[in-house]
């Protein structure tokens, strides 16, 4: 049945919280048609995750999308003519956008995206066009948004209605022994009020609902009076931890509102959002019912109603601070989420009534028990971390807050560097090794490429800086291969943490924390954080070269295993790596550079280049040069085998050794091939990390490969000297 929602001024029926997920739309105009019912509210599209099944269309870098929410705000109470959205990938890959809307038809709006936050490089769109299908039944409401601009392919998504509210927040009103938590007033009890003000019983939850937040309320409880009868901030913080049923040191959409008698500050403090203590701020607020807010001006027409109204106003004012709202005249101070304007005359809960021209009488004569538009915009549409109580900086300490980790995991992800101490030389690429193990007692099906860089979520955080997500250079497009992982079995992978499409995120000297998550079906398998340090440069010369190394070209060449040249962009990268080999042969980066430079010489290397007249392209083949390859790679795999094992990592060392040997053999360099494998077998057999040797089967596998080379290959010194 349809009913009128007085908080939002919407004609409505029930919410549709449990509606099935929406589908990505086709380009049909099935939503067309006049609207006869409100359309504002929260819409969502959530994606059931399946192994390796594409779920697009997704912005690049946010693959796969886990959840997408849209807040559509064009009708109902205090419409902001705004649509905002949050696109969440697994874990931290999140984009937030906001667009201002203009109505262009009966059920159509359009506007420019004026705010972006998060992984914005993955979200180039500049404009939206919104088509709404209103319905008296929430389940029937749809929103189609077409994203355009920014040079990106048009993206169209249909969302299903979820709630008429944009957020949901829980409130608990506790009170000092002997006081009461009075959370309602008669709006017309005081004669000084706007003539148009509806005479109704106003409650705090009703006001918050009108701001766009669904409200749930937990039962309040009595708090013993403090020693000395007045409250300090610390005492209230202690009381919050003891008496608030939902207290937790975490960000949550919940706040504690405390009605006390007086603060130790004295009667001049009417209330305070006291919770700037500890790691999670803005969870607790208080008002002091015996302070100046209980002192009506002399001669007031209805002193009791004045006190009730002032207490009501103060409670919501402090709750506004918990939503991270500043005072009306403070909007331009501090770090605003977007450029704001001060509102010293605003009739808002966040202004001081006695500060406006004409004083409190003038304020309440026009006060409609609301927040200002820019405050409503913030509460409804700002990124969650700015608004949610107790939240911290973007991704800081909350990198994996959205991980879908089962209570009793049967998969374990290990992130390791295979060296005694996770210390890296300056410029040394950080290659991580990953092990995904079935620790349950039943077989598990996993994607064979679960540990490939583009299948993982890897978070990189330098101490003192915001966390960043590794965006790998390579995105595969392959037929998924499912692998049965038996109990106790594991799959392994490697990933270069140093650099990706975001740049060199793990390169500057300092301490880093790295965490990874593999995604198996609906489950996120999250590793323990790995701390590592990068040493400062040894010399000014290293700093200079690092300026060239920490660029996209060298990063791509190191990640992809070399470039055969001919491509100007990557030729420069090869020059940088060659310079490193020549000038810093004792540094570990030179081993990586040698592998990247030598690898293309192990095969007939094909390069696609434009023809001279630029009218076509041609494939240019550079013949394999086993001698050049051996010159570059042998010092790494043979002469510096133990160092190479540490800096390349066990898996890459073995992979490179095996690949190089096979290619050298194919190119006719049998002896070099044999020497490479013999050295690898010897090095791996001697290798121990923290007292643990390499698994015997790894060495046995290599020996098998070596046998395949024999008997024609026998290791012997090369006779050809490099000119």
């Amino acid at each position, binding site marked *: 049945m349809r009913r009128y929602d007085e908080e939002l001024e919407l004609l409505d029926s029930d919410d549709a919280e449990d509606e099935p997920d929406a589908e990505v739309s086709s380009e049909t105009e099935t939503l067309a048609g006049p609207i006869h019912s409100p359309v504002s509210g929260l819409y969502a599209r959530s994606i059931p995750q399946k192994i390796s099944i594409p779920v697009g269309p997704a912005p690049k870098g946010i693959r796969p999308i886990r959840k997408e929410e849209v807040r559509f705000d064009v009708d109902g109470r205090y419409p902001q003519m705004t649509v905002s959205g949050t696109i969440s990938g697994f874990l931290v890959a999140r984009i937030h956008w906001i667009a201002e809307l203009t109505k262009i038809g009966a059920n159509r709006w359009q506007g420019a995206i004026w705010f972006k936050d998060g992984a914005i490089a993955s979200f180039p769109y500049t404009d939206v066009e919104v088509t709404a299908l209103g319905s008296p039944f929430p389940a029937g409401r749809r929103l189609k948004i077409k994203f355009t601009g920014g040079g990106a392919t048009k993206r169209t998504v249909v969302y299903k209605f979820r709630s008429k509210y944009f957020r949901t927040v829980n409130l608990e009103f506790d009170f000092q022994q002997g006081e009461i938590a009075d959370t309602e007033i008669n709006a017309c009890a005081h004669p000084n009020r706007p003539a148009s003000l509806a005479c109704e019983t106003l409650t705090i939850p009703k006001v918050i609902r009108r701001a766009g937040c669904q409200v749930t309320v937990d039962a309040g409880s009595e708090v013993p009076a403090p020693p000395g009868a007045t409250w300090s901030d610390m005492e209230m913080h202690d009381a919050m931890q003891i008496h608030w049923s939902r207290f937790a040191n975490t960000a949550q959409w919940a706040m504690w509102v405390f009605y006390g008698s007086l603060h130790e500050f004295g009667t001049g403090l009417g209330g305070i959002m006291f919770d700037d203590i500890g790691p999670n701020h803005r969870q607790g607020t208080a008002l002091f019912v015996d302070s100046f*807010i209980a002192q009506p001006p002399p001669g007031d027409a209805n002193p009791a109603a004045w006190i009730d109204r002032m207490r009501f106003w103060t409670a919501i004012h402090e709750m506004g601070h918990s939503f991270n709202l500043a005072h009306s005249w403070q909007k331009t101070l501090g770090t605003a989420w977007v450029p704001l304007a001060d509102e010293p005359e605003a009739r808002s809960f966040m202004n001081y009534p006695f500060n406006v021209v004409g004083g409190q009488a003038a304020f309440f004569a026009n006060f409609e028990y609301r927040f200002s538009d820019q405050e409503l915009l913030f509460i409804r549409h700002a990124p969650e971390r700015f608004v949610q109580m107790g939240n911290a900086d973007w991704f800081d300490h909350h990198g994996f807050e959205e991980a879908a980790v089962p209570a009793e995991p049967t998969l374990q992800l290990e992130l390791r560097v295979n060296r005694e101490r996770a210390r890296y030389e300056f410029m040394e690429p950080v290659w991580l090794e990953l092990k995904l193990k079935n620790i349950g007692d039943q077989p598990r099906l996993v994607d064979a490429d679960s540990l490939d860089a583009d299948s993982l979520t890897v978070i990189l955080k330098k101490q003192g800086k915001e966390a960043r997500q590794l965006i790998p250079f390579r995105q595969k497009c392959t037929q998924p291969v499912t692998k049965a992982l038996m109990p106790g079995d594991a799959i392994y992978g490697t990933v270069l943490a140093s650099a990706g499409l975001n740049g060199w995120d793990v390169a500057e000297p300092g301490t880093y924390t790295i965490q990874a998550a593999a995604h198996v079906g609906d489950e996120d398998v999250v590793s323990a954080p790995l701390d590592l340090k990068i040493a400062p440069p040894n010399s000014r010369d290293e700093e200079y070269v690092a300026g060239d190394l920490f660029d996209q070209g060298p990063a791509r060449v190191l990640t992809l295993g070399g470039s055969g040249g001919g491509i100007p962009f990557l030729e420069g990268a090869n020059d940088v790596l060659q310079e490193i080999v020549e000038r810093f042969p004792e540094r570990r980066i030179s081993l990586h550079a040698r592998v990247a430079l030598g690898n293309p010489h192990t095969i007939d290397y094909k390069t696609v280049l434009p023809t001279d007249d630029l009218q076509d392209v041609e494939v240019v083949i550079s013949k394999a040069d086993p001698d050049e390859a051996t010159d570059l790679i042998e010092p790494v795999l043979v002469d510096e085998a133990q160092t190479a094992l540490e800096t390349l990592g066990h898996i890459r060392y073995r992979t490179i050794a095996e690949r190089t040997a096979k290619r050298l053999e194919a190119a006719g360099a049998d002896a070099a091939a044999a020497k490479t494998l013999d050295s690898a077998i010897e090095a791996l057999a001697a290798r121990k990390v923290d007292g643990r040797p390499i698994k015997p089967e790894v060495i046995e596998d290599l020996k098998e490969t070596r046998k395949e080379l024999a008997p024609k290959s026998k290791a012997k010194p090369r006779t050809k000297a490099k000119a």
Partner: protein
Amino acid sequence: MQIHLALQDGFDGDDVVLRVAGSEAYRGENITTRTQISHAADMQLEVPDHPFTLEVDVPTRGVRESLQIDPHEHANVTLSLRDGRVVAGFPEQIGFV
């Protein structure tokens, strides 16, 4: 007579000296705003019962400004630092929330 004077927004570990009609009336060190209540300090100042000059000196910012105050018109005075300037307000009442 007295006025109620509050140092409100913009103070961050600052030294503040107030002079009433040339005489030092207040000196505060390490004055810092608690932004959620817009309060850094407040005090009752003894002032002449006629218009006077209030000199506000914030040496830690290199800010020094003078204001003309009529205590009969402005019993409540707020001072904030904004963009390197002292901004005065004259509210009906001084209280903090």
